[in-house]
Each structure stands twice: as C-alpha cells, then as structure tokens.
C-alpha cells in the first residue's frame, strides 16, 4: 500500500477510469465535456464555478486542475480568491442556517 492517499500524477490518469467500465465512463466524460462548453455562461465563468466547487468538496485534483485552467484563461488571483470566499460563505452559511433547526428544537423542548 502506498503511504499517501493522493498523488498529483493520478490526475493525469483520470481518463483511465473508463477502462473498467467503458460505457459509463464514456457517458460521464461526454457529459463533463458538454457541461464546460460555452452556453448561457462563458467557459471562463464555468471555470470559476468549478474552482469554487472544488474547494467546497475539497478535491485536491480539481483544485489543481481548475487553478491551472483559470490561469490559462487569464483569470486573476483576485477573482479566484473571491470565488473561494463565495464557496466558503455558502459553506459556512449552510452550517449556520441549520442552527434554526437547533433553535426550533431547543424552543420546543426547553421550558
């Protein structure tokens, strides 16, 4: 067993996922490719969303990939950091908003 869970070299092997199930792999990569094509949102906007989401799901591969992708597209570090704060705000807010549930419960049970 290797000593670390993540190896940067594995990112390049992502496509190999299809080897053990070609049909589903192909469907996924097809979908993935389409998602990132320009539509109502530009490719640039999609890249920033992907960067923010990768921080929310804390995927080091995606963070690596979409930081590089952002640089290539001319996205500035200020834009990247703002996108991250949006992700962090939603993440924090999502925890906090459940506080209402806690408050409801306390209010119901407490005298």
């Amino acid at each position, binding site marked *: 067993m290797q000593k670390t869970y993540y190896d940067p070299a594995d990112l*390049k092997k992502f496509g190999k996922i299809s080897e053990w199930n070609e049909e589903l792999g192909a469907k996924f990569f097809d979908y993935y490719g389409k998602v990132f094509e*320009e539509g109502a949102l*530009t*490719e*640039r906007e999609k890249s920033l969303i992907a960067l923010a989401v990768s921080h929310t799901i804390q995927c080091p591969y995606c963070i690596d990939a979409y930081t*590089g*992708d952002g*640089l*290539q*597209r*001319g996205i*500035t570090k*200020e834009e990247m950091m703002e996108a991250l704060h949006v992700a962090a705000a939603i993440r924090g807010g999502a925890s906090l908003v459940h506080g209402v549930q806690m408050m409801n419960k306390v209010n119901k049970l407490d005298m």
Partner: protein
Amino acid sequence: MIKSLHKRESALANSKRQLEILSNGIFQKGVLPTFKEKISETNEFPLKAKKLEILQINVGYMCNQVCSHCHVDAGPDRKEIMTRETMIQCLNVIKNTGAHTLDLTGGAPEMNPNFRWFVEEASKAGIKDFIVRSNLTIITANKKYNDLPEFFKKHNVHVVSSMPHWTRGKTDKQRGYGVFNASIEALKMLNAVGYGMPENKLRLDLVYNPSGAFLPSNQKSMEKDFKKALLEAFNIHFHNLFAITNLPISRFLDYLIASENYEDYMYALVEAYNPAAVANVMCTNTLSVSWDGYLYDCDFNQMLQLPVNSKVKHISDYNEDLLEGRNIVMSQHCYGCTAGAGSSCQGSVI
C-alpha cells in the same frame, strides 16, 4: 528595473548553455522524448522549408522594457543594432522575393536610429502585410516617439503589440512597473488615428502570452475576454488577439529554472504536443534575419544561435533556390510551437 541576462553575465546568456539544458534537461522524472523522435512518429522529420512567405527582420535587441519572459533577452543595456548597410541588403531581398509579409521585430524596433528610413524604403516594395512589432510603451516613452501612430498610419503599417493581460497587476508583473498605464495610453493614441477600429483597415492586433509557467488557453475565447475588458474599462478597440506560448529559452528559461517550474513546464509542453500543429509551424514559410544579417529559421533559433542549414548563411548572399527545401534546424524548444493549438508569431496555427 531588472537587467538582461547578458548584462548580468548569467551563464544562461550563453546559447550553448541553454541548448545543453534543453537537450540534457534537469530531469528527475525520466527522459523526455526528443522533438526529432516525436515528429518522426508521423514522418515529419526532417521538416523542410517551403517557399518564403514571411521575412522577419530583427533590427536590434535594444528595448526600453525588460520583460521577465523576453526570449530575446532585450533591454536598454543591449546595444546590438542593425546597420543601414545590412538594412539595404534586406531591402534588396524584399524587392526580389515573392514574400507577402514583412515583419519587423526587436527589442523595440523603433529604437533603431534607421528605423523610420527603413520603414519608408521597405513600404515602397509593395509588401501585402507590413508588420511592426511595437511594445506600445515606446510610443509614450519619449516625445520623439509620440508621433509613431501617425507615422505607422502614413505607411499603412500593421501594428502588432504585446499585452499580457487586461489588468494592471498581471501586466506590470511581467513587463515592468508602469507598463500597463503606458500601454493603455498608447492603445488610445493608436485608436485615435484609426488603428484597431472595427471598420478601419489600419490593423492593430494584440499578442497574449501567459504570465507564468502555463500554456495559453483558447485564442478565440481569450480574444473575447480581452475585447470585453478593454472596451468596458478603457473604450479601447483592437482587431485580433494572437495567443503565443512562451518558449523555454533565454529569460523565460531563467524564470522557469529559478521558480523550479522547468521540468513540469517541459512535460506540459510534451503532453500537449499536437501532431496537427507540426505542418503549420512558422519556420516552414519564414526566414528570420538577425541584426547582423545572419539567417535563421525563426527568431527562437536566432536567439539560440542555430543558423539555417544551408550554404547561404547571410542576407547578403540570399539565394531562394538554395534556401528553399532546406532542413529546418530543430531542438527541444520546438515543443513550444506544437503544444495545444500550436504557436507562431501569428498566434495559434490550428
């Protein structure tokens, strides 16, 4: 202001040292395939020169800027300048070849004391596309250059200018403090005389090259982003954006090594190798002339001191029959021209 590698007496100022690094690498991950091996896979080796279409003349390495990525290692401390005598030899060739494009580069070509004379003489030769690669800031650097937009217009010059980003921070980091503001000012001056305006024939194109150890993104979508940003913030217009890959030579190579990005960058270039780009690399229809009149397959080979593989070595001996069909001289830096959508002085090649 940083100094050129030359002035700093850096080991990398020596082209032999650069070629050594490119060929032998500083590689831990294994050996990179040679460019020759790579293009042999699709039977493209040796790559042969076709008929001359673009004559690129480097009129000197002197520049008012010292950009951190400069493959020429240009700067105010570089004194190599083309003489009028060599210019006359170039003019003779321009008049006698079927080349449709003349491309003046440097350094800042405008700093050559014979620049205006040369443009005036060359523009009489009836070249279809007469390009001057202007770094923009030279236009505002000194009063004596302020009329350059008018001068370019008079001779119907096609202006091609570098602009690494539409934000001040990124541009100044790569090209020097204050470059962004001066470039915006110069672009406004060019627009004011008609350059780059949507319906105007006076062509103004911008060159984008990445401000770090990464490849450029899609040229068309970058152009859209540049146009939107420059129009919204400064009401600036231009025609096309050329996306250019930084080649791992000279000051960019120095940066790659110092920032410990060299190995990964070379791998990224090889990984992005696109066999479809090989047929369109610019050396197949271009000839590059150095300030002292020697001939090279491209500006990069010129900086690496890799002269053309032909009996004809100097512009004064120019001979189309001997130069056409010559084998192009290639090394590992050529991966930069064939990565992704390919890269040339005219942007991506696919």
